[in-house]
C-alpha cells in the first residue's frame, strides 16, 4: 500500500491511560484468586533436539514474572508449549485446567492469552475491529452474523487504556511499532485473558513507552498472572516482581531480581567466556566481583 504513514502521526497523542485500565480491571478480584500457572516437567523436543528439558515453573496470580536467558534458552518455546503451538509433554495447568494436548483455541478459552515477538495484529482491519474480534470468541452465531452497532464497553475501555482511541478507525497496519504492541496488550485485555504471556512486549519501543508499558503491566499483574519474556535488562530491573533464568532448556535460577543477579551460575551463563553451558554444575567457582556485570548485557 502506498499511503504515507507519518501524516497520521500515530505518536501525536499521549500514551497509555492507566485510569481507563481501572474499568477494564473492575471485575471482582475473586475471579482470579485461584489462578496460577503450574508447569511440571515440561519437555519440548524438535526432531531429537531438546529445546525445553524438564522445566518446572510456578507463577501465582499477582506476580509479574520475567523469563530471561541467552538465545536458545527455550523462553519462547515454553510460551509456545503452554499455548499449544509446540509439541509438549509433561503438565501445564492453569486455574486447575490441564493445557497440554489441547488445541490452541481451547487453551485460549481456558483464559490464556499471548503475544508474539513480531507484533501480529490484523493489518487491514481497523484498531477497533482488531479489538472487537479479540473480544468476541464467546459470541453466538447470531451476534456474529450481524453488524457491530455499538462498541462493546470493554473494547471502549481497552482503547482508552492502550491509548489508541484516537486512531480507532485506522487500519492497524499503519500504526507505529510500539502502538501495535499496545494494541496486542489491549487485545489480551478484551479477550479477558487471566494468564498473559508476553513475548518481548517492549522491543522497539522508546524509553518513555517502555516506562508506560511497564507500569501498565505491573498494574495488570496485580490482578492477573503475567509472564514476560524479555531481553531488556533495564526494563527487567525496573518492573519484574520475580525472575526465572533459563539456560539450554532448563531452569537455572529463580527469585527476585536481586537474588538472581547474585546467583553465580547466572553470572557465568551471561558472561559465557567460551564455557557456555558446559559448566552447568560446576559454576560455584564463579568470581563474585562479576555479579553486577550480569545485568549489563543490554546496557
Amino acid at each position, binding site marked *: *500500500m*502506498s*499511503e504515507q504513514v507519518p*501524516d*497520521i*502521526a500515530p505518536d*501525536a*497523542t*499521549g500514551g497509555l491511560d492507566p485510569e481507563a485500565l481501572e474499568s477494564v480491571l473492575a471485575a471482582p478480584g475473586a475471579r482470579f484468586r485461584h489462578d496460577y500457572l503450574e508447569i511440571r516437567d515440561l519437555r519440548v523436543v524438535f526432531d531429537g533436539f531438546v529445546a525445553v528439558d524438564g522445566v518446572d515453573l510456578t507463577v501465582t496470580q499477582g506476580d509479574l514474572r520475567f523469563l530471561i536467558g541467552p538465545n536458545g534458552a527455550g523462553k519462547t518455546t515454553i510460551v509456545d508449549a503452554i*499455548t499449544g*503451538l509446540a509439541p509438549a509433554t509433561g503438565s501445564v495447568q492453569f486455574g486447575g485446567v490441564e493445557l497440554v494436548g489441547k*488445541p*490452541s*483455541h481451547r487453551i*485460549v*478459552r481456558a483464559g490464556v*492469552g*499471548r503475544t*508474539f515477538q513480531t507484533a*501480529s*495484529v*490484523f*493489518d*487491514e*482491519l*481497523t484498531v477497533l*475491529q*482488531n479489538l*472487537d*474480534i*479479540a473480544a*468476541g*470468541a*464467546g*459470541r453466538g452465531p447470531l*451476534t*456474529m*452474523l*450481524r*453488524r*457491530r452497532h455499538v462498541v462493546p464497553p470493554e473494547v471502549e475501555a481497552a482503547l482508552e487504556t492502550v491509548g489508541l*482511541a*484516537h*486512531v*480507532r*478507525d*485506522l*487500519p492497524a497496519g*499503519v500504526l507505529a511499532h510500539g502502538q501495535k504492541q499496545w494494541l496486542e496488550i489491549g*487485545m489480551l485485555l478484551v*479477550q479477558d485473558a487471566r494468564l498473559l504471556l508476553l513475548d518481548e512486549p517492549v522491543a522497539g519501543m522508546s524509553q518513555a513507552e517502555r516506562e508506560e508499558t511497564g507500569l501498565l503491566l505491573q498494574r495488570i499483574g496485580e490482578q492477573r498472572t503475567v509472564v514476560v519474556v524479555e531481553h531488556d535488562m533495564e526494563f527487567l530491573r525496573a518492573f519484574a516482581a520475580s525472575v526465572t533464568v533459563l539456560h539450554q532448556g532448563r531452569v537455572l535460577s529463580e527469585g527476585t531480581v536481586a537474588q538472581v543477579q547474585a546467583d553465580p551460575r547466572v553470572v557465568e551463563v551471561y558472561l559465557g567466556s567460551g564455557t557456555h553451558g558446559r559448566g552447568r554444575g560446576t559454576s560455584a567457582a564463579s568470581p563474585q566481583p562479576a555479579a553486577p556485570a550480569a545485568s549489563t548485557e543490554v546496557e
Partner: protein
Amino acid sequence: MTGATDVTGTTDVTGTASATSTTWWRRPSARVWGGVAVAAVVLFGLAPALLSDFRLNLLAKFLCLAMVAVGIGLAWGRGGMLVLGQGVFFGIGGYLMAMHMKLADAGPGGVPDFMLLYGDGVVPGWWEPFRDPVVTVLAILLLPAGVATLLGLAVFRRRVRGAYFAILSQALAAAFAILLVGQQKVTGGTNGLNGFRSFFGFDLADPVNKRMLYFIAAGVLIAMVVVVRLLMHSRYGELLVAVRDQENRVRFLGYDPANVKVVAYAVAACFAGIGGALFAPVVGIISPADVGVIPSIGFLVGVAIGGRATLLGPVLGAVAVSWAETGLSEQFPSFWTYFQGALFILVVAFLPQGFASLGGLWRRRRGASDGASTDPSAGTHPPADAPGPDAPAPDAPDADASRTAGRHA
C-alpha cells in the same frame, strides 16, 4: 448493458466503507438499497427491454455463472481459500435439478429417455426422491452446502491451505467429472442430461417461461449479492478477513479458524449449487463439460478479473468475461481462449486486485489532490483527544472493500 453495469460498479464497489459520513446517500443502508434499486432497474427493466429473447437467455446463463462467482468472491477474496473446484457444487445443483426435470418429463412412474437408451430402463432408487419438487429444491439448497461443510471440516481442521487446498479442490472437480462420465446409465455420461421440456410444470419451449427463468435468475443473483454484502459487513465478515490474513493469530484469540472458513466455503458451495440448478433449465443441458476442471477455472477467471475482494467485482467480472467470450467466439472462433489467457495475465500482472481496484486507485488519486479537506478520524470522534490538523489520514478508515485484498493468491 455494460455501460449500465459500470455505473453500479462505480457507485457501489468503491464506496462501501465510509459509514462515518452523515450525508444520507453515503450511509451504508442507503447504499445497499440504492445498489439493489439500480441493479433491479438494469436487470428487470433495461435488459428485457433492450435484448432479444435469445440474448436475454444468454444473459440468464451468465447470471447463473455469476452466482458461482459471488460465492467465490466470498470464499477466495474474503476468506483466502482458492476454491478451484466450484464445478463440483455447480454440478451437484445442476444435476439435481436436471434429474427432477427428466423425471417430471417422464411422468409419474415414468423412466427418463436416456435410461431406456443406455440402461436397463429401471430408475435407480436414489433417483426416486427427486420426483418430488420440494425434495429437489431442498436438496439443491442443502446438499452442496452439506458436502462443503463435511469436506471443509476435514480439510481445514488438518490445516490444509493455500496451494494444497487449491489442488485438492481441483482434483475433486476432475474426479467428479470422471465419475459422471463413467456412470452413463444413471448420469447420461458425456452427453449429460438434456432435452428438458418443463420446469416445475411450465413449458420451457414457451418464450414467456424462458423470460420468467431469466427474472428468477436475476432476482436470485441480487439476493445473493445482498447476502454477501451483509456477511462482509457483519462481525463474521471482519473475522473472515482476519482469518485470511493471520490464521494463527485468530487461533490465539480463542476461535477455531476451521469453523470460520467452513461457513464461507459452505455459503460459496450453496451459491454454486443454486447457480447450477438454474443453469440446467436456462441452457437446457448439464454435462460433465460444465462441471470439470476447465469450467471450475473459468469461474475463477472472471472473479480475478473483476476483483475478488470486492462486492460487485466478481459478479461484473464473471458476466463481462462470459459476455466477451460469447461475443468474441461469434466473431473469431478459436480466438477467445488466447484473449482470455492474455487478459488474465495482464490483470494478474498489473491489476492484482482486479478491475474493481481501478475505482479505489482513482479515488485515492483524487483524495490526495483534494488534500486534508476531510478528517475522518477526528470527525467520528469529537471526544477523542484531538489528533488535530496533523492527522489528515486521506482515506484511511476505508479498511474495507477494495483495500482489503489480502495477500493470498
